[in-house]
């Protein structure tokens, strides 16, 4: 990369209050995201939340209604897609059906008038990186899904651009290939160090690839942060529900003072807060209602080291469903007050209809405003 940066933390790709309306309807509402040079930004959210719209605006296919996009400090919002020095891998791969693999990879250089010898050299380079040399003479129709994916990446790679855009690149592959290609994209990013913006609706892809995740819902940015922040400190219930599988357990109840501590109370159950904040105390002072959230892996059948000393973190609950996955077993409990899913070791036997003692790691508990869904820090 030829651009030198003043400082490491300076953002490279700046999405600045970007908005998009289609016929007066907001597809994207004033979104701002900064990506550092060499960063891997993943845009994630349910279908129709505006991910492709945002990506197409970065690529230059859709004009922005409001806001600006900058790369290395320079606005690219008014540039033609071919002038932005950005390459894109499309969801459908979009390989030119009448051209060979080599023709596909070389088409951009051809239109820019790169001499043939140089073109062939670069095509060979890229083909060797992606291990598609034996395919260069074939037509896209003669390739498998995974091979097409590689060629589409080759076409982007050969440009040596300032940033790559990926629009759900793995969604057309079968599960096994998806995992393999995911790993390859991650390795490729580590090797090239080029900034990437990647769209997916798959939260596992987002977690594994990203240096930064942006969660969108109905065109509105919900949270931007590292995978760790998104997972461990979701900004609201939408993010909490969307990231992680199985979805985070959530129960509505009250915060109450109890012997100098603060307890989350629902029906007969009480769970003691680990390190309550000032805001927790304020709510407890008026016995306010909150949403309590905890992930399945933070509920277990044994009181681990992290739970020792914390009283009031165990509940006796009735098993409703047992789902062994091989490595772990998920058990769901259900009664009129609360539904929980816990991840327990696979050797523990649980029986539907019986009661089990489950321990809640309250240091991993989340609390949300029960009306707005906002995280209560």
């Amino acid at each position, binding site marked *: 990369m030829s651009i030198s940066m003043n400082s490491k933390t300076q953002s490279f790709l700046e999405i600045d209050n970007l908005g998009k309306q289609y016929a007066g309807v907001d597809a994207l509402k004033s979104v701002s995201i900064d990506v550092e040079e060499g960063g891997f930004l993943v845009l994630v959210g349910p279908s129709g939340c505006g991910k492709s719209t945002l990506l197409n605006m970065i690529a230059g296919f859709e004009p922005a209604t409001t806001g600006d996009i900058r790369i290395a400090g320079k606005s690219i919002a008014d540039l033609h897609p071919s002038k932005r020095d950005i390459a894109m891998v499309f969801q459908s791969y979009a390989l030119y*059906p009448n051209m060979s693999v080599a023709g596909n990879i070389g088409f951009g250089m051809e239109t820019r008038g790169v001499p043939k010898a140089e073109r062939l050299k670069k095509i060979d380079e890229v083909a060797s990186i992606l291990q598609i040399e034996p395919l260069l003479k074939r037509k896209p*129709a003669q390739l498998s899904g995974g091979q097409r994916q590689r060629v589409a990446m080759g076409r982007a790679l050969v440009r040596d651009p300032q940033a790559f855009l990926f629009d759900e690149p793995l969604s057309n592959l079968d599960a096994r290939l998806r995992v393999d290609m995911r790993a390859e994209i991650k390795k490729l990013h580590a090797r090239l160090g080029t900034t990437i913006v990647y769209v997916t609706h798959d939260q596992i892809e987002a977690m594994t690839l990203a240096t930064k995740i942006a969660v969108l819902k109905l065109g509105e940015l919900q949270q931007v942060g590292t995978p760790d922040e998104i997972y461990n400190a979701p900004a609201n219930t939408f993010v909490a529900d969307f990231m992680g599988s199985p979805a985070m357990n959530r129960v509505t109840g009250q915060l109450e003072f109890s012997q100098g501590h603060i307890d989350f109370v629902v029906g007969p159950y009480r769970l003691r807060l680990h390190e309550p904040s000032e805001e927790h105390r304020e709510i407890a002072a008026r016995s306010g209602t909150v949403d309590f959230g905890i992930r399945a892996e933070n509920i277990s059948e044994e009181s681990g080291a992290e739970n020792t000393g914390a009283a009031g973190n165990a509940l006796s609950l009735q098993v409703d469903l047992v789902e062994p996955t091989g490595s772990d077993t998920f058990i769901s409990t259900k009664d009129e007050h609360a539904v929980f899913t816990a991840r327990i070791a696979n050797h523990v036997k649980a029986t539907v209809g019986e009661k089990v003692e489950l321990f809640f790691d309250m240091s991993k508990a989340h609390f949300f405003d029960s009306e707005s869904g906002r995280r209560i820090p």
Partner: protein
Amino acid sequence: MNSASKLSFGRIALYLVLFVFAIYYLLPLYVMLVNSFKPLDEIRQGDMLALPQAWTIAPWASAWSTAQIGVQATGLKPYFMNSISMVVPAVLLSTLLGALNGYVLTKWRFKGDGIVFGLILLSCFIPFQIVLIPMARMLGILGLAGTTSGLVLVHLVYGLGFTTLFFRNYYAAFPTELIRAAQMDGAGFFRIFTRILLPSSGPIIVVTVIWQFTNIWNDFLFGASFADVDSVPMTVALNNLVSSSTGVKEYNVHFAGAILAALPTLIVYVVSGRYFVRGLMAGAVKG
């Protein structure tokens, strides 16, 4: 399962019906062919279905180069050439322009493009008779009255509605991501058209060419209305041949002439029909 057991009663009945229909359609062609190789007196003897006793190609030679057409004894040859020099540019231009229209209407959308397409489409439904007089006036103003160029223009304008419709529908299903990929690769309007879109348009080009060629070649009304002596197309000449014979009706010559007039469309069907099927097969293999 062996094939004998498939020959049920229903199947036999089906084949029988198909056979009868095939005969029904092929019989006129057979009659024309057979009688075009007979001397005239053999036809007068009455058996239209019999094979010629004395084969002769004289009727064909006459129809092609010496028969009386209107007032001149030129045969159909010059009119065949008139038709060719009208049909070829008209088909090529209307196909190309239809492709461009379809491309713009699907991939370079603009405000009001739907209305434009609606208006173009409307032109498909205007009956020929309505445009005759305004068209004659237009050709007069443009100085193209009675010329082959004038006929090309008429057929081009009239065919554009259909060719645009064909290509628009075909390109509507063409992935927009491909256009975007090409844009990102730096290709402009015409390069995307010629390098990406046209090479993938084989089947629709063949359909359009067959449609346009058949319609324009077979057109009689525009030819009869707007053509002059040196631009009269084949269909009009054939009519003149059949109606202008003084004295005896030379049926054998008329039959030969009619087949000559139909031959190009037949050839187009046979040649491009095969290509068309091949195009479809290629698409099927692509999956």
